[in-house]
């Protein structure tokens, strides 16, 4: 377990992917430890997102989006990390007079992250950490037909996304650090000309870590603000419901690392939101992650 000291206290709570499910609501974040380039990882993640849709303030449908993902991260160099994931999504919309059920492969994603600053103390514990990541989401999953009225329920948006992630972590005390993350996602349009608006998000998390039993416990409460731009069709603003809005959320991550296994639980609860002219509200989001950490061969 000596690698735990190397591990630092950098917790990657939100990833680059502001997903387009339900018009962009949901960070669709993969949780993982952005360890100080000591490990490759491979794992699985399960998540459940809930939404409610309104008409004149009256609920007319409920949406449940469940995802299972295979996630992996490879660290070819001390300052370079490549992470990727492939989701499988099951979406259900329950209305007063019927329901729809759509499942299939989602869009695969890849993120290349470069560590710009990594200061360590004499114990090799991280003090300051700054990284910049560039990501791509490819529209290779199951997408909605052009005429579909339930576009948001499909696993794929049918469009390419390009993301930039800037992450900064500062160690405050031996057991506490403060992490900030900003994400900007540029979205292309799909084959029918529909384009979701670009997404911005900012998250701040206090990460507390402590040795516990046979492993190490990491707990990260925090806040996140996500902002969604308006959708367009053939370059023109979509009239009516255009998926524009914001969501301000609280979140907490609990992780436990032991014997190269990393267990994670992430819960996100919206505090304030105004999305799609109030016609849609995001509910609680829960995700569980299990990753296996593969120690890199040292070539020092």
């Amino acid at each position, binding site marked *: 377990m000596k690698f735990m000291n190397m591990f630092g206290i950098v917790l990657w709570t939100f990833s680059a992917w502001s997903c387009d499910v339900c018009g962009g609501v949901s960070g669709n974040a993969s949780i993982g430890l952005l360890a100080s380039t000591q490990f490759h990882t491979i794992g699985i993640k399960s998540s459940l997102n809930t939404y409610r849709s309104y*008409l*004149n303030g009256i609920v007319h449908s409920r949406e449940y989006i469940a995802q299972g993902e295979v996630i992996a991260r490879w660290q070819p160099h001390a300052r370079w990390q490549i992470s990727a994931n492939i989701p499988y999504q099951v979406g259900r919309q329950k*209305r007063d007079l019927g329901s729809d059920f759509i499942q299939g492969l989602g869009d695969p994603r890849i993120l290349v992250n470069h560590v710009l600053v990594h200061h360590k103390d004499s114990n090799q514990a991280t003090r300051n950490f700054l990284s910049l990541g560039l990501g791509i989401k490819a529209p290779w999953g199951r997408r909605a037909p052009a005429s579909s009225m339930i576009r948001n329920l499909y696993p794929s948006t049918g469009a390419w996304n390009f993301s930039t992630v800037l992450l900064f972590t500062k160690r405050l005390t031996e057991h506490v650090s403060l992490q900030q993350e900003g994400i900007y996602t540029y979205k292309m349009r799909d084959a029918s000309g529909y384009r979701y608006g670009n997404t911005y998000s900012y998250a701040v998390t206090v990460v507390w870590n402590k040795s516990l039993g046979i492993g190490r416990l990491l707990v990260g409460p925090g806040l996140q603000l996500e902002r969604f731009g308006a959708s367009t069709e053939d370059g023109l603003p979509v009239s009516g419901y255009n998926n524009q809005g914001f969501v301000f959320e609280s979140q907490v991550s609990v992780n436990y690392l032991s014997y190269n296994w990393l267990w994670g639980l992430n819960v996100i609860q919206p505090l304030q939101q105004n999305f799609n002219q109030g016609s849609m509200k995001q509910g609680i989001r829960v995700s569980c992650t299990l990753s296996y950490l593969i120690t890199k061969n040292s070539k020092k």
Partner: protein
Amino acid sequence: MKATIYIITFTLGILFVGTSCEKHSEPITATLTLLEPQAGDTVMAGEALHMHGTVVGSGELHGYSLTLTNLTTNQVVFSGSNATHQTSYAFDEHWVNMEGATSNMKLSLIVNLDHEGNTTTKSVEFVAAQ
């Protein structure tokens, strides 16, 4: 002590009677709104009709149904119902025009005000074109 018991019993009795009377004296009403389609709309072949509306009751309602009928062929092409007891409802459904010939259509929203058969209805007529 006895006086206190009498007062409590009397007060509870009045409250119970008052509540019971109020329940039967105010008949439930409902406001039905059909946002889409609008009367006289035309839905072209292969296009989706958006059926969008709300029901707001003065009290608890006993469900509603939505029926789309082709008046030209006298066939029901869409129907759905919700039997849950709520004070308000909203619906958002779609139907694709595959009728094959230009037809007059009628969308009917029927709300159950009670279980004695009292209902209130709102309808709109439009055209499914070819």
